[in-house]
């Protein structure tokens, strides 16, 4: 359903700062897969997700989505099928607009936007329902500007925005990194709940190793722009964090150098 073939991405080509951020990525995603991707700083994880989202276009290779070759599609043309959340809580919501306006925009994901009232009583009812499932009381604050929400509430709203129109692919780039541990756990649990109830195909860059093991049915490691390890559900669910670090060192031939990911809770 989602397929990458020989994908390369180079930044600053032909200069002394040349970075091969993606080095021959090949991947075939099965519908319903929930993949976690780990790797040290600068391994190319974010670039990988951005190439899928169309924020960065690959320099070589092919990206297919639902049987369509979307390699050259800019972000806005793929948006119909892809929901994405960034680690910055400010990035995935519109601050000056209200909760219901944010949701009304998500409701129209990838569709033609015309001159109908964006908010109708039917939509309001729907928004209340989906927000009630989140369990943060946001359903009673539909008309409040998003700027007044906490980081955690914003990321919860971002999750609803990303998944409201049931995308074919959900991309999560350390979306709990900016939150305190307790809120991060809340948002992760909510993520797991939404992904499994909607059976969303998901790629997640987790904020720590524990998340990488706990969530998803497949775990991948990236190193210097390459996918160096691909663990299936059984193998992954037996792992402990130290074992995972060990597997990384063996596969990459280097020590796992990302203290942040190792130590973060």
């Amino acid at each position, binding site marked *: 359903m989602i397929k990458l073939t020989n994908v390369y991405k180079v930044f600053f080509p032909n200069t002394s700062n040349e970075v091969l951020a993606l080095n021959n990525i090949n991947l075939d995603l099965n519908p319903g897969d929930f993949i976690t991707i780990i790797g040290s700083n600068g391994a190319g994880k974010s670039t990988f997700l951005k190439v899928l989202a169309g924020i960065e276009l690959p320099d070589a290779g092919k990206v297919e989505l639902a049987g369509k070759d979307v390699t050259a599609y800019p972000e806005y043309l793929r948006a119909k099928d892809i929901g994405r959340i960034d680690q910055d809580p400010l990035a995935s919501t519109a601050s*000056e607009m209200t909760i219901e306006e944010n949701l009304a925009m998500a409701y*129209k994901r*990838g569709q033609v936007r015309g001159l109908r009232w964006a908010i109708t009583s039917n939509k309001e009812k729907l928004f209340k329902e989906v927000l009630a499932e989140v369990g943060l009381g946001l359903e009673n604050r539909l008309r409040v500007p998003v700027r007044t929400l906490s980081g955690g509430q914003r990321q919860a709203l971002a999750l609803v*925005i990303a998944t409201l129109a049931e995308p074919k692919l959900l991309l999560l780039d350390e979306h709990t990194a900016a939150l305190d541990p307790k809120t991060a756990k809340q948002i992760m649990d909510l993520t797991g709940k939404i992904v499994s109830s909607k059976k969303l195909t998901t790629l997640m860059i987790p904020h720590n190793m524990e998340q990488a093991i706990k969530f998803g049915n497949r775990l991948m490691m990236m190193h210097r722009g390459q996918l160096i390890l691909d663990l299936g559900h059984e193998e992954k669910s037996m792992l402990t964090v130290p074992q995972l670090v060990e597997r990384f060192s063996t596969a990459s031939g280097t020590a796992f150098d990302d203290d942040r990911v190792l130590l973060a809770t």
Partner: protein
Amino acid sequence: MENIITSGLQQGFIYGFMALGVLLTFRILGFPDLTVEGSFPLGAAITAKAIVVGADPLLAVLLGALAGGVAGAATGLMHTRMKVNNILAGILTTSAIYTVMLRTMGRPNIPLLTNENFFDRILRLFNITEGTLSLIQYKTVTITLLFVMVLTARLLLGWFLKTDLGLAVRATGDNEKMIRSLGVNTDNTKLLTLIISNFMVALSGALASQSQGFADVGMGIGVLVASIASVIVGEMLFGSRGLSMLLTGAILGSVIYRALLALGLRLNLPAEDFKAVTAILVLLALFLPNIKTRTQKPLSLPQVTENKEKEVGQE
């Protein structure tokens, strides 16, 4: 006193269209669009020329406003398709507009005092001839007419900004990355907003030419700062939170600003100083909140989008 009020209302409503247009680009889209300094006199020039060659004043005003829409499209296309910096795109369009105006009018100035104007034409729709009204009646009627027009524009804009498309426009100014990730081509929302804004600004210029009885290539100088001043006055008096407040505030701000100008004239203050005084007041209004609370955003006018775009590039 009466003069100050009637002048404030009449001029304020006329320039209210422009304040709405400026609010739309500077405040809502976060696009500092300098095209307006050109589309304002362009609206007047096209309208005046159309009238002297015999066009119906209603059609003439419409043509003037449409010319502004074209100017907005030019700036929008330069910025979105040719990646010209937003301020420079507006300057380029404005500069070209001067040639268009001089070529169209054939000279820098067209007087219109002997021609039937827009307001008389509307009166004729209701079978009223100008001569049958006293000056006060005539003023009341034109002010009422302008009030209805600017109120209509205000309501239409308020409605538009609450449609699916309008939300996409507002989100383009609020969080461009976010709305793009929801499938909106933000180049198109920017282009559309610039067209609407400059249409309204040129309409403002067209009506100004009808009220003052001439069109002049120089009549756009300083109108942008005056509009920003109006928007700021509106924000200070009616608050900047909430779309309705912003829109209504822009028009009322425009009325108050024009009344203050009329007052200044009445007090025999030197008219040639008004532009500098306005510029200084705008500067203070933008600067003072900044020193009070350095962490807070100043009165968010003008919001420059350059930073946002850099962010996108740096990703």
